[in-house]
């Protein structure tokens, strides 16, 4: 990292780092939050969506006449209207499929929208759906990732001619040399399941269209990024400034899957335009579990070239992602987003990659918490254990052997990631100590003597946050990129103002989903301006017409702790600077002589020469003539901060795909019941380095949640389909989400290695353990079943699946 990128000195702070209770709690816990369904507009009508029961079929005809005559129905939007009124969404692949917000002449997954009924209430709208008859001509389906690439597979999109949406090769370092120098090559194949996030609040949209101003106003619970505001404008064929999005104060969970909301925004906008009504649609749970968005399922083939001493010289892998019936932005990001941290926490300098993104007749994808890092680390961390097993090496020792060393930071990876700060040894050692590793191995030995299946698993992974939008352009070759316009950035905007009575107002655009942003912003501003957190009000309603925002705005990719905090600090410092200038002018002093102390600006060394900050604020607003010459009146400062480390990819396809890189180590001890295949977690330590801790109570909540999410992906959750393409997990009785009963005690630890590139030294923490837990549990179960000769290469590890693996292994013997 060039020296100039290390922008910030970190000082001791009063409020940041304290476990302040959330400002948001009172309103949320007393039912006074404002979520999408709380918004009721005058003359609002309600929409219900007719969805395809077929995974792949031609639509031969739709008859809506009976439904239109149903009392209370105000209008019906079908694919025919959508084709006339809108365009397919742009997406960054060489030959894009024609992806509209509604099926036009063909359906490609169960749950794809086919028509929208607008009625006086939701009951009428739902009943009217029954009266629409659709004549489908079913087609053969393709459900398997690898079968999708076969020349015999049914083709989803004739204009593409195959089911491959994106395909690229990458070479970093010299893999041939790594193979030559290697003592052995270890191979593995891994399958990561399709799973999602199931936020407690589903998608919601209220749209209206003004035919005179030709303008849409659309309330929605979109979590960002606002690059998709542009995509919806393009789809609707309107300029962006004719489409106003308003996101209410509260969103009931996003986890990345609410970035998949934007096609529904377009759909309801068209229904509003066609009917001339204000139309509300709140997704029901079945719709969510059929057709919202999941992460990609992925098949990975991986080879590691290793020395006998455990040194990993290089990796070769082929990863195939599945974005379902269509591919929509930000995909094919799934294949490219983790480029910078592809080699995890290890010094691996040689890498050959082949990436493929394919389509099957499954529901579409979006960045799901961890955005493909769980897929990446499941294969990488399982591979590390396979290598250890081949070499007869301890699984902790092999990790220490290959870690990047503390004195190597900032560390540039083979793929172009710039790891800002870390001490991986320290984090991992803490996890080992927490489970008492040596003692556990001893207990495992005894357990094995008794025929019990006990296993110890680790995963030690880099936690990337604040994506740099540049990664999306890796879908193009360097030559193709050179012809187009480069992309880069991670910007976030904040406005800070001090009102005439001296209180502070921060306007942010973070679309909070329960993370406690208002609380942390107040803590930061209190430190910067020397006020109390209660003196800071935070507005966090996003309105694209009157807020300052960036296309990367939103809460996703664990952006808050790194880039939003830096924008808040920078804006606050600009405000302080202005106030000091005003005070210097009024006190007839030099700015350099001034300091802020307990709500006052004083001349250093002369305590009687001072001004209350609120008087400075009062002057800025009420006595504008007294301000220094040429200064703007009032006290408003804006910062749209982008990380200087967000650069476009270079000609060798290296990219710093994220901006701050935390680290975490999971250590999990399990016991598997050989009779039932049930997994019991005996010990779990989760140690994180998220840089400076902003609010320990909030971080604790994030880590707990991400651990539970990771546990779900490991043992329970899968967006499952039968062989005919029917989704068989469309309710919570079949789509299993871990509850408090399933989550064991987790011993959470922290190591704080501050990032030099964020104002407070903080790194992201919102996604964290959901990336590391699936690999760790996979490793622990593999270790438990090792005496039986069972290897683990797929998730989720349901008792049924484990039981079958055990039976298969027994038969082999």
């Amino acid at each position, binding site marked *: 990292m060039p020296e100039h990128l290390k922008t910030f000195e970190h000082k001791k702070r009063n409020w940041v780092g304290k476990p302040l209770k959330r400002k948001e709690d009172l309103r949320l816990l007393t039912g006074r939050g404002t979520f999408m369904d709380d918004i009721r507009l005058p003359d609002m009508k309600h929409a219900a969506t007719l969805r395809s029961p077929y995974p792949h079929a031609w639509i031969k005809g739709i008859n809506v006449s009976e439904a239109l005559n149903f009392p209370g129905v105000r209008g019906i939007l079908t694919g025919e209207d959508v084709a006339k009124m809108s365009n397919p969404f742009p997406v960054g692949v060489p030959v894009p499929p024609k992806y509209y917000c509604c099926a036009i002449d063909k359906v490609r997954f*169960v749950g794809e929208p086919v028509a929208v009924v607008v009625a006086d209430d939701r009951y009428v709208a739902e009943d009217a759906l*029954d009266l629409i008859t659709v004549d489908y001509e079913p087609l053969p389906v393709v459900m398997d990732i690898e079968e999708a690439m076969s020349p015999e597979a049914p083709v989803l999109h004739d204009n593409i001619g195959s089911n491959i949406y994106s395909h690229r090769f990458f070479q970093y370092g010299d893999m041939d040399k790594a193979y030559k120098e290697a003592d052995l090559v270890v191979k593995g194949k891994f399958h990561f399941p399709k799973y999602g996030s199931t936020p407690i609040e589903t998608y919601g949209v209220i749209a209206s269209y003004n035919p005179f101003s030709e303008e849409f106003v659309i309330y929605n619970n979109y979590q960002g990024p606002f690059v998709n505001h542009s995509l919806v404008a393009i789809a609707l064929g309107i300029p962006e400034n004719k489409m106003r999005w308003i996101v209410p104060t509260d969103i009931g969970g996003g986890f990345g899957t609410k970035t998949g909301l934007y096609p529904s925004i377009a759909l309801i906008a068209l229904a509003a335009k066609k009917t001339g009504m204000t139309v509300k649609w709140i997704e029901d749970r079945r719709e969510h579990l059929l057709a919202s968005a999941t992460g990609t399922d992925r098949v990975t083939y991986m080879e590691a070239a290793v020395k006998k001493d455990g040194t990993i010289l290089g990796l070769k892998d082929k990863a195939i992602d599945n974005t379902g019936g269509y591919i929509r932005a930000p995909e094919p990001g799934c294949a490219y987003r983790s480029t910078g941290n592809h080699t995890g926490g290890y010094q691996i300098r040689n890498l050959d990659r082949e990436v493929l993104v394919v389509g099957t007749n499954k529901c579409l994808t979006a960045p799901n918490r961890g955005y493909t890092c769980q897929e990446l680390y499941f294969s990488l961390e399982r591979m590390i254990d396979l290598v250890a097993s081949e070499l007869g090496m301890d699984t902790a020792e092999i990790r220490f052997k290959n870690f990047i060393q503390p004195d190597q930071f900032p560390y540039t990876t083979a793929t172009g990631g710039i790891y800002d700060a870390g001490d991986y040894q320290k984090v991992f050692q803490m996890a080992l100590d927490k489970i008492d590793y040596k003692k556990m191995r001893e207990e495992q030995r005894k357990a094995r003597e008794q025929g019990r299946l006990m296993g110890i698993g680790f995963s030690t992974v880099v936690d990337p946050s604040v994506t740099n939008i540049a990664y999306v352009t890796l879908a193009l070759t360097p030559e193709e990129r050179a012809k187009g316009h480069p992309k880069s950035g991670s910007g976030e905007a904040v406005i800070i103002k001090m009102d005439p009575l001296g209180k502070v107002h921060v306007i942010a655009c973070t679309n909070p989903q329960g993370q406690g942003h208002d609380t942390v912003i107040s803590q930061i501003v209190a430190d910067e301006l020397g006020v109390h957190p209660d003196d800071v009000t935070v507005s966090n309603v996003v309105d694209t017409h009157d807020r300052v925002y960036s296309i990367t705005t939103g809460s996703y990719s664990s952006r808050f702790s790194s880039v939003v905090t830096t924008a808040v600090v920078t804006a606050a410092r600009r405000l302080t600077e202005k106030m000091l200038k005003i005070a210097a002018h009024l006190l007839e002093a030099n700015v350099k002589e001034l300091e802020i102390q307990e709500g006052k600006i004083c001349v250093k060394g002369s305590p009687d020469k001072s001004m209350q900050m609120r008087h400075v604020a009062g002057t800025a607003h009420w006595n504008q003539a007294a301000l220094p010459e040429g200064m703007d009146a009032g006290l408003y400062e804006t910062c749209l901060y982008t990380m200087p480390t967000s650069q476009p990819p270079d000609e060798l396809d290296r990219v710093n795909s994220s901006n701050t890189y935390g680290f975490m180590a999971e250590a999990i001890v399990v016991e598997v019941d050989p009779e039932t295949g049930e997994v019991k977690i005996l010990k779990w330590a989760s140690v994180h380095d998220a840089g400076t801790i902003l609010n320990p109570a909030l971080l604790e909540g994030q880590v707990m949640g991400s651990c539970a999410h990771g546990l779900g992906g490991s043992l329970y959750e899968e967006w499952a389909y039968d062989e005919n393409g*029917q989704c*068989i997990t469309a*309710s919570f009785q*079949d789509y299993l989400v871990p509850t408090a009963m399933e989550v064991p005690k987790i011993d959470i630890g922290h190591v704080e290695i501050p990032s030099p590139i964020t104002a407070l030294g903080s790194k992201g923490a919102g996604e964290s353990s959901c990336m590391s837990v699936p690999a760790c549990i996979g490793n622990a179960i593999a270790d438990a079943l090792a005496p039986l000769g069972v290897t683990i290469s797929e998730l989720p590890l349901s008792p049924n699946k484990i039981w079958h693996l055990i039976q298969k292994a027994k038969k082999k013997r």
Partner: protein
Amino acid sequence: MKIEGKYKFLASQEQIWDLFMDQKNLEKAIPGCEKMEEREPGKYDVLLKIGIAAIKGTYTGKVEVVDPEPPNRYRLLGEGSGNPGFVKGEATIEFSQEGQHTIVSYQGDMQVGGLIAGIGQRMIGGIAKMMAGQFFKKMAKELKSQQ
């Protein structure tokens, strides 16, 4: 999804064959059958109203008897769709005499789609079995009333 089962009737194999070939009996015995019309020989249009949990709704469909080998077996093709989704399947119905009894057995494959698949798939096997049970009981009743 595989479905199978059998039922024992107290009558000769020929009597039972005739019982099953008579549309009027089927119309009465098929659970929820509101209407059954013969389009052409062996091909019927049916309207079903089913009131069971996950598959509750009105279905319209087609049923076809193919490859009849009186009085031993025939194949049944069926498909129907309604608000809760669609059902498609085929089954072989076999008749065999055991003393004074005739055993009717069925063996088939069924595909479901839409809401039925997403919500109710785990229960479909049980529901199919229950509906088959109801059907056979009613057929036995028809048989009795005609004897």
